[in-house]
């Protein structure tokens, strides 16, 4: 079972990972975007970690809703609403249970990913964060580690794709040959999730 503390540790680990990888994310965003993905997410996840430290909600759903609101209020760009929606809608799908099962969590995360797809009007193959998120939620019922691997592979697989959404889409064919920064940051979330699960004895 996953409790509020697990979710809090996940997001804190995610904040650490984003902090560590911020420069690489900005570097990836430079040839096909506008070189700010890392610094924007860093600002948002720093705010998430601070908010969760100050005000620790006592259900998994409330942790995610609080974190999502923080991202919307601090990140800006497209990543703010998209990542904010991912966490908020996942949190709302979890309801107010004090503990949730892993299968229930996977279902809720799928609701969050679907909301991201609807908001951005994107689908897998468009060279966006969905290219990591969708395979990851597909693999999540197997294990946290499988979700991490799927997200990572999904991010790598964006390199040969032509972007169809977001700023990279304006480059047309010239977006081909670059790994998508959004898919890469999404993979970081699942890496942090797997780490948190390993630390908590979930495989």
């Amino acid at each position, binding site marked *: 079972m996953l409790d509020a503390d697990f979710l809090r540790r996940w997001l804190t680990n995610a904040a650490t990972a984003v902090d560590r990888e911020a420069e690489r994310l900005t570097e990836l965003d430079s040839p096909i975007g506008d070189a700010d993905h890392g610094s924007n997410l860093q600002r948002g996840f720093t705010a998430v970690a601070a908010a969760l430290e100050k005000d620790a909600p006592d259900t998994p759903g409330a942790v995610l809703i609080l974190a999502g609101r923080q991202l*919307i209020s601090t990140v800006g760009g497209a990543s703010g609403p998209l990542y904010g929606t991912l966490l908020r809608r996942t949190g709302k799908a979890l309801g107010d249970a004090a503990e949730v099962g892993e299968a229930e969590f996977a279902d809720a995360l799928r609701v969050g990913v679907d909301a991201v797809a609807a908001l951005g009007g994107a689908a897998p193959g468009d060279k966006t964060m969905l290219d990591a998120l969708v395979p990851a939620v597909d693999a999540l019922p197997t294990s946290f580690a499988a979700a991490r691997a799927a997200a990572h592979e999904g991010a790598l697989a964006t390199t040969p794709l032509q972007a*169809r959404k977001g*700023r990279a889409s304006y480059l047309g064919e010239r977006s081909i040959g670059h790994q998508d920064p959004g898919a890469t940051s999404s993979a970081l979330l699942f890496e942090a999730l797997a780490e948190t699960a390993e630390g908590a004895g979930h495989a």
Partner: protein
Amino acid sequence: MRMLINVAETVVADALRGMAAAHPELTVDVENRVITRADAPVAGKVALVSGGGSGHEPLHGGFVGPGMLSAACPGEVFTSPVPDQMVRAAAAVDSGAGVLFVVKNYTGDVLNFDMAAELAEDEGIQVAKVLVNDDVAVTDSLYTAGRRGTGATLFVEKLAGAAAEEGMPLERVEAVARRVNENSRSFGVALSACSTPAKGSPTFDLPPGELELGVGIHGEPGRERRAMMTSREIADFAVDAVLDDLTPTDPVLVLVNGMGATPLLELYGFNAEVQRVLRERGVPVVRTLVGNYVTSLDMAGASVTLCQADEELLRLWDAPVCTAGLRWGM
């Protein structure tokens, strides 16, 4: 890379503090990142709120004032502002006559303004939105996020701002804004990449002797790279790209816009070529504006925007405006 900054993290706040010191006629909320005209809300007047990433100055904060915007929300550099800023701005300037959000067509701006519109309506503020998407360099729009909003944003903000100042109700101000967008097209060219403070080096690599055709305003590369062309050749290319998409039946307003690092000497020379092409193509010009208005940090280059203007739009263009970045007639 040399930049006149302290640290990247405080670039936007530092600029806002300096703007506040230079413009006492504006209210600049540095902490919440909202710029409003100091006399807002103006009783009975529709309010115009716009915003977007910083780095495009004077857009949008420089266009706040009588005759144009009521408020602007600057985001981080090249990053859309967040909904909290937009809702705060809307609440500060709404007189009860409603608020028009002027939104450039970038995924981040669209998503954040959509969220803000919902939240503002929850607070009882009547909101309308207009999406600016004038950039003809973006093709295949069925399979992309659509055309970018670039130079035409100035026309939309000026003309709809004048309509609001005349006392038109929200739906008419919104209709003017939509008409201006539908009547406007742009094309941009970069002679160098820009450097964002966060990255500190050029966002793409453009060797000397080459230029990028079809750039937007975010340091993203364009769709095509060629060997350097003359001002005359660039004007032919840019104006023809616009006219391929817009067949004006009315005379046009012309904006020859600098991207931030091209001096006026070059922009005026480029304008001479733009006017020549328009003459050759039989397109009458009624007004021309030359300068740095919708910039891209320190990018060198220029864009051309044409807006075909009927009598009403021309009247609104000539109406007085008093902002930091655009001022005439008062």
